[in-house]
C-alpha cells in the first residue's frame, strides 16, 4: 500500500458496501464527476489502494470517518485479551504438566505428544484451511475456535459478507496462529522457569514394547534439523538407555537422574522447531494472504469495478449545456398557408402539365396558372400583382406536402389582397400518402393566413 492509505480491513468492506448502496440512488452524472475528481487526486496504482483512497475521501467529505456505535470491546482490545489468555494458558498448561507428575518425573512421550505432535496437527489443519481459503473457498470454522470471538468484534453490523468469506477465514486463521504461537511461547517460558526452580527428571516409557533403538531413531529424526549445528540439543544413546522408565522398576540412581535432565535442550528445540516455528510461518503467511485477499475482496466487491472505472475515465460531456427553450409556441406566427380559383404553383411543386394530373386542379383554366417561390423576389412580386389584379374567388396554392410550411410562402401570401378564399393544396409524393404530422402542420399554417376563408386539401391523382 502507498499513498498514505492503510491496509484495508473488514470495516472498510462494510463502509464500501454502505457507500455503494448510498450511490445507487444518486444521478450517474454526479457520481462520474465526483469519482473522477477523487481519481485525479489519487496517486495509487493498484485497485485496492485507489478504493481505500476513495473511501477515505468520501469519509472526509461526509465529515464522519465511520458509522456504527462505539463498542466497549473493539477488535484490537479483544485481540489483546485473547493474546494474554493464550500466553497464560500456555504458561499454566506447561507448568501444570511439569508439576503434576509424581516424583518429579516427566514422560518425554507425553510431553512430545502434547506440546509437539498436537501442535503439528493443528498447524497441518491450519495449513489446509489456508490453502482452501486462498483458493477462494470458505472452509467451516469450528464454533469453539477462540479467534471467532475476536473476529466477531471486527464486524460493524450483522450483514453477511458473502463474497469475502475467504478473507474472513484468513483473518480467523491469522488470529488463530498468533494465539497458537503465543501459547507455545508461554509454554516455553514456563518450561524454563519451572525447570530453574524445580529439578525434573525426563524419562520415557510406554505400555507398548518400544525399544531403545526406536526411541533413538525417533529422536534422531526429530533432531535432524539442528543436530549438525546444535549437537548439545540431541539425545545420546546413553541418555536414552538411562532414562528408560517403568513404574515397576523403582529407584533411579542419582547419576542417572542427573543425566536424565539432558533431555531438556532436545525438548526445547522440538517445541521451537515443530510447534512455534510452523505457527510463526503460518502466522506470517496468513497475514500476507489476508492482506492480499482483503485487497482482492475490496477490488472485487460488487460495485467496486464501477467506482474504479469512474475514477479512471474522464468525464465526457456531449449534451447541451443550457436547457431547451420551451416557451409557448406560436405556430401561426412563422408558418401559415391559403386558397382560390387561380392556381399558384409554389416553389416548383408541380411540373409542366402536371396540374392536369390532379382531380382538384382540372377545373383551373390553363390561363389561370401562376408560379412563384423559385425565382427572385422580383419575380414573386410580379405574381403577387397578377393575383391582386385578377382577384380570384379562390386561390389554390400547390405546395410540397413533404416540405414544412416556410415563412417565404407566408411572406408571399401576406402581400395578396382582395382574395377571400385560399386553399392550400398538398401534392403527395408518388406512391406515398401525406404523413399526418405534415398535414397538421399545413393545416396550422393555412389557419394563420390572412384570408377570410382558408382550408387545406390533399391532391389526388386522376
Amino acid at each position, binding site marked *: 500500500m502507498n499513498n498514505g492509505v492503510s491496509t484495508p480491513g473488514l470495516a472498510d468492506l462494510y463502509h464500501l458496501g454502505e457507500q455503494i448502496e448510498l450511490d445507487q440512488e444518486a444521478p450517474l452524472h454526479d457520481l462520474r464527476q465526483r469519482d473522477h475528481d477523487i481519481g485525479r487526486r489519487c496517486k495509487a496504482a493498484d485497485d485496492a489502494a485507489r478504493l481505500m483512497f476513495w473511501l477515505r475521501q468520501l469519509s472526509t467529505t461526509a465529515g464522519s470517518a465511520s458509522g456504527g456505535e462505539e463498542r466497549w470491546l473493539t477488535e484490537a482490545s479483544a485481540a489483546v485479551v485473547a493474546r494474554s489468555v493464550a500466553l497464560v494458558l500456555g504458561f499454566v498448561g506447561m507448568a501444570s504438566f511439569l508439576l503434576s507428575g509424581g516424583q518429579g518425573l516427566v514422560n518425554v512421550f507425553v510431553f512430545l505428544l502434547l506440546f509437539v505432535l498436537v501442535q503439528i496437527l493443528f498447524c497441518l489443519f491450519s495449513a489446509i484451511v489456508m490453502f482452501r481459503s486462498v483458493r477462494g473457498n470458505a472452509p467451516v470454522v469450528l464454533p469453539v475456535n477462540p479467534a471467532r470471538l475476536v473476529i466477531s468484534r471486527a464486524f460493524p453490523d450483522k450483514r453477511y459478507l458473502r463474497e469475502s468469506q475467504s478473507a474472513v477465514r484468513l483473518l480467523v486463521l491469522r488470529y488463530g496462529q498468533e494465539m497458537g504461537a503465543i501459547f507455545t511461547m508461554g509454554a516455553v517460558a514456563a518450561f524454563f522457569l519451572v525447570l530453574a526452580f524445580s529439578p525434573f527428571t525426563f524419562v520415557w516409557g510406554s505400555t507398548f514394547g518400544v525399544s531403545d533403538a526406536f526411541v533413538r531413531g525417533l529422536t534422531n529424526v526429530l533432531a535432524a534439523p539442528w543436530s549438525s549445528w546444535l549437537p548439545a540439543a540431541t539425545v545420546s544413546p546413553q541418555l536414552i538407555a538411562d532414562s528408560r522408565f517403568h513404574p515397576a522398576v523403582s529407584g533411579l540412581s542419582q547419576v542417572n537422574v542427573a543425566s536424565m535432565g539432558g533431555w531438556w535442550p532436545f525438548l526445547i528445540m522440538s517445541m521451537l522447531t515443530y510447534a512455534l516455528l510452523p505457527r510463526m510461518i503460518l502466522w506470517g503467511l496468513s497475514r500476507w494472504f489476508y492482506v492480499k485477499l482483503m485487497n482482492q475482496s475490496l477490488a472485487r466487491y460488487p*460495485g467496486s469495478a464501477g467506482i474504479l472505472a469512474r475514477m479512471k475515465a474522464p468525464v465526457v460531456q456531449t449534451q447541451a449545456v443550457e436547457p*431547451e427553450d420551451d416557451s409557448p409556441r406560436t405556430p401561426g406566427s412563422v408558418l401559415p398557408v391559403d386558397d382560390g380559383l387561380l392556381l399558384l404553383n409554389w416553389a416548383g411543386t408541380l411540373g409542366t402539365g402536371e396540374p392536369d394530373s390532379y382531380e382538384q386542379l382540372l377545373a383551373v383554366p390553363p390561363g389561370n396558372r401562376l408560379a412563384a417561390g423559385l425565382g427572385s*423576389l422580383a419575380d414573386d412580386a410580379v405574381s403577387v400583382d397578377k393575383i391582386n389584379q385578377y382577384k380570384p374567388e379562390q386561390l389554390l396554392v400547390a405546395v410540397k406536402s413533404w416540405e414544412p410550411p416556410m415563412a*417565404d410562402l407566408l411572406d408571399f401570401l401576406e402581400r395578396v389582397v382582395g382574395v377571400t378564399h385560399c386553399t392550400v393544396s398538398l401534392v403527395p409524393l408518388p406512391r406515398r400518402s401525406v404523413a399526418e*404530422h405534415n398535414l397538421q402542420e399545413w393545416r396550422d399554417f393555412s389557419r394563420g393566413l390572412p384570408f377570410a376563408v382558408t382550408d387545406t386539401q390533399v391532391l389526388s391523382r386522376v
Partner: protein
Amino acid sequence: MTMPTFAVVGRPNKGKSSIVATLARDDSVHIAPGAGSTRKARRFPMQIDGETLYELIDTPGIQRARSVLAWLREHSSDAASRPETVRRFVREHAHDPHFANEYQMLSPIVDGAGIIYVVDGSCPFGADYEAEMEILRWTGRPSLAVINPIESDEYVEEWTAGLGQYFQTVRVFDAHRAETRKQLELLELFGHLDTAWQEPLQRAVAVLRDDRQLQHRSASSLITDLIIDSLTYKVEQSILEGIPEEPVQKLLLNQYKSHLVKRERQCRKQVEELFYYSDVQKSEHKIAMDDDELFNEENWYLWGLSKWQMVTAAASAGGIAGGGAGMVVDAASGGLLGGLGTAISGIGGAVSSAAGAWRYADDIGQLKVKGMPSGGKLLSYGPSNNVNFPFVLLGRALLHHSVLSRRTHAAQDKLDLNQPILEWMSDKERRKLARIFDDIRGDKKVPKRRADLAQMVLGWCVAVDGA
C-alpha cells in the same frame, strides 16, 4: 487554434436536431414530427474533464432563404466581399424578428463554425433548396452535407447528385438508426473540414470509443449484480406462537417480489444513465415491459428458457454437482469402483435436478418455516430455487441493454422489450449459466462465479456493437 465548432443547418424538419441528439447523446433534445421544433440555436459542447474538444450547434430551420439571398446580392459588389456581406447581414439583422431564424443559423457560421447541412433523403431534391445552399456558399466556411433518410432512402441518389454541386463532401447518415461506429465515423469526418480540427476530433472520437466500452463494462457489472442479488435474496419474519402464518406468508411474498421488481427497475435506470438516457421512462419513450410482468410466469418462457431448455440446463448443473460427489467416492475407494460412483451420482444428480426444475418450474421461491429456540417460528421466503428465474432476469436485462445500445438518442419510439430473448444463446452457454447460478445459490466460490458471469454478460453486451 480555434475550437472546432459545427453549425448544423438546413430547412425545418429535416432532422437537424435528430443528428445533434444522436451525436451529442442527448435525449433531452426536443424532436417533434412537425417542423419548427428548434427555435433558438443550442450548443452541445463535447467536453473531457471540462476541456471542450468540439461543439455542435443545433440551429433553427431557415425560413426566408430567397429573401436573405436577395439582400446579400443587393449588398455585395464582388465574390471576394461575399463572406463580409454575410457578416454584415448578421450584424444588421441581429434584432430583426423577420430574420430571427436566419440570424440564429448564420451567426455561429460567421463566427467560424463549420457547416453541416442536413437534408431529408426520403423527400425529393428541389430547385427551391438552391437559395439556402447558395447562402451557405457565400459564407466561405468549410462545409459538408448530410443526407438523413428519415423515412426511406428513396431520394438519396438524387440528393447526392444535387448536393454535389455545392458541397465537396456528402454523406448519408440515418440519425435514428446509425450504430455507434457510424456516429464516430461522421464525427471523424467533421474533423476533415479543417486540418486544424483533425487532432481534437480524433481525440474526441478515441475518448468516445473508450466511453462506449466503459458503458458496456459497467452495464455488465450492474446486470451481474442484479442476477446475484436475485439468486441470494430472501426475506424473513419471526412470529410468536399462535399467530396465524398465512398473512405473514403473503406479506413475505409481497416483500420478496417488490424488492426484486425495485431492484430490476433500479438496474434498468442505472443502465439507461450509463448510456446517457435521461427520460426513457417518460411517457413518449415508455418501455413496453412492465415491472409487474417480471412475475408473470406465462411470459417467463418468452424472456427466459423454454421448459425443455430449462430442464436440460438444470440436468447439466445437477449432473456436474452429483458427479463431483461421485468422484469423491471413487477417489476414496482408490479407483476400485472404476468410476461407477461418479456415473451413478452424476446421473442421479441430473435426473433429480431436471425433475425438480420441471416440477417447480412455476414457483419463484419456497416458503420455509423453522421453529425458534426462544419460541415462535421463523418464516422465510427465498432465495429463489427456480431454474428459469435468473434466466428471465438476465434475458430481460440483456434485451433492455441491447435495445438501448442500438437505439440513438434521436429515437422517440417505445422500447419494445416484448420479444423472445435468449434464443440466440447456445446450449453450452445455457448449461454454463445454470452451473454458475447453481453455485451462487449454494454459496460456492461466489467471487469466482461472479467473475465468470460478469465475463459472459460483458461478452454479450460488447457483441451488440459488433452485431
